[in-house]
């Protein structure tokens, strides 16, 4: 027993030393959200290769994944991220508002609103579409159970909510009250509110709960292709939102660590043909239209609206809908009184 304890201790300490010793080579920390793991694992390898060919230096990219909001919070509280690649601009903007880690113009520093890949919100249904779900309207039917995570804790869920809201607003010709009723009705059909997008996927896929799952397009593809082949179908709604997961260098951190050059190159390379193709393979829509054409078969044409056009930007959407006392809170309250 003594021996194994000592080994453990030595092993543990060795890990610590190794960790600090390897800090001499170039290291980047990419703080991201849950669904990007598979993509960035491959992208990191591609970038390392690219960088060593270009400069001869070895780059090791460390990864951290979690819910988008809690990841942003960690960076604000001192997690040493060189770059963040999060689910929504609101979470990235918090780095500026809460901790002044990035400049105000961060979103215009890279092309396409700093979103090298985009996605949208689609509907995932069970094989054969037994409840015949075609569009957002079917989600407010009495006989349909809807799975979506909680917009308060999940970035993906906020996209879901806004996509449905945007559709309803369009349908009711801008009538806010009717739109509100529509969303309220939709959430009455939600039996479980998971805290994160991946938790909700598991509820729908593993637990078999619900008739329709509102999901990121890339997550829906993942479910169809890998989780349960042939068990699910994707239903593309008539209108949806253009989800732009933004990326940025965390200026305060890279300037302190002296990693700005690599960090900027790391994000810049996301727009390269190679990375764009990689994004497409991982079911993200490439922002480069040329590469996008290569994947035209996999991504159906949807009428997409932007959050800026319908909601006046993330900050406003957050204030009106998701903050305490916002519309989502009053929907919940209304449902609880039923």
């Amino acid at each position, binding site marked *: 027993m003594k021996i194994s304890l000592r080994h453990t201790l030595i092993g543990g300490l060795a890990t610590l030393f190794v960790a600090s010793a390897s800090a001499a080579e170039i290291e980047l920390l990419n703080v991201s959200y849950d669904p990007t793991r598979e993509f960035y694992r491959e992208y990191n390898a591609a970038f390392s290769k690219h960088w060593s060919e270009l400069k001869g230096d070895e780059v090791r990219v460390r990864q951290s994944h979690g819910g988008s*909001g809690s990841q942003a*919070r960690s960076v604000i509280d001192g997690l040493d991220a060189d770059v963040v690649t999060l689910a929504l601009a609101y979470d990235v903007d918090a780095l500026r508002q*809460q901790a002044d880690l990035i400049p105000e113009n961060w979103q215009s520093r890279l092309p396409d609103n700093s979103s090298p890949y985009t996605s949208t919100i689609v509907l995932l249904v069970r094989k054969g579409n037994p409840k015949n779900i075609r569009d957002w309207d079917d989600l407010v039917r009495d006989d349909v159970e809807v799975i979506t995570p909680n917009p*308060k804790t999940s970035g993906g869920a906020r996209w879901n909510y806004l996509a449905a809201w945007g559709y309803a607003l369009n349908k009711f010709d801008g009538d806010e009250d009717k739109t509100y009723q529509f969303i309220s009705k939709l959430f009455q059909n939600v*039996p479980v509110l998971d805290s994160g997008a991946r*938790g909700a996927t598991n509820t729908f896929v593993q*637990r*078999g*709960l619900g008739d329709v799952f509102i999901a990121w397009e890339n997550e829906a593809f993942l479910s169809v292709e890998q989780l349960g082949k042939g068990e699910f179908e994707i239903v593309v709604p008539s209108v949806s939102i253009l989800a732009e997961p933004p990326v940025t260098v965390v200026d305060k951190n890279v300037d302190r660590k002296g990693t700005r050059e690599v960090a900027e190159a790391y994000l810049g390379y996301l727009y390269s043909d190679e990375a764009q193709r990689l994004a497409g393979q991982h079911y993200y829509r490439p922002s480069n239209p040329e590469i996008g054409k290569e994947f035209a078969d996999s991504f159906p044409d949807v009428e997409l609206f932007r959050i800026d056009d319908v909601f006046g930007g993330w900050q406003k959407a957050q204030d009106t809908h998701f903050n*305490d006392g916002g519309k989502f809170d009053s929907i919940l309250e209304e449902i609880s009184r039923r």
Partner: protein
Amino acid sequence: MSVAKKRRVIPGFGLTMGFTLFYLSFIFLIPVGGLLLYTSMMSWEDFWRAVSHPQVVASYKLSFGAALIGATINLVFGALVAWVLVRYRFPGKKLIDALVDLPFALPTAVAGIALVTLYASSGWVGQYLQIAGIKVAYTQLGVVVALTYIGLPFVVRTVQPVLEDLEAEREEASASLGASRFTTIRRVILPSLLPALMTGYALAFARAVGEYGSVVFISGNMPYRTEITPLLIVAKAEQFDYHGAAAIGTVMLLAAFALLLLINGLQWWTSRRGV
């Protein structure tokens, strides 16, 4: 023998008490004091608004209510399990004994996943309960199940050593004095176990109130119905509302402390009366 004389006899009070207080301050009092100070920087109105919102109040009811039920289930069954493990022989006893600690060993998230796999309406147990019309997963009952699970080892493990240590002579003496088995259990065994039972109850309750990881998988997290307080704290923190999170955290902390104080005070009082 007077209390003062006893204290003089056994040495080491200064040393042990000193170390206890030092460590307690370092690891516990200073951080918790920090939280209270942080909360106290809020204005009274902000604090009140954060902690008295109907959604938050509904979550208190669920968290404390389910924790009380879970701890009570554990009190009854935990005592029984400890008794059976110490006093009786049956095949597989050693293995069962080893398994009692499982709820601590499994990370709470794994426990939550395992429980929902079992008790969801498609699960191993859930499908049969479904027939009986009982729904566990994604209901308040699911919260109780999770909280019972994570608090299970407490009562067993506090009662077990005391029971092992209980001298057979006292039971024999009671029996020889003509007491029935029931009377012996009630008058001799139970009073000796009482401090341990109360401790186990207090700990199981305390642990259950704050539990997060396992519950979120099985509760369904519906606001006003199956949403526990720790989840609301997480939600506040994720919206960068640390003050709101700290305020609710403080309420939970004070309520838990008051309940623990009540239980520990009660136990101290009964043990003094018993002497």
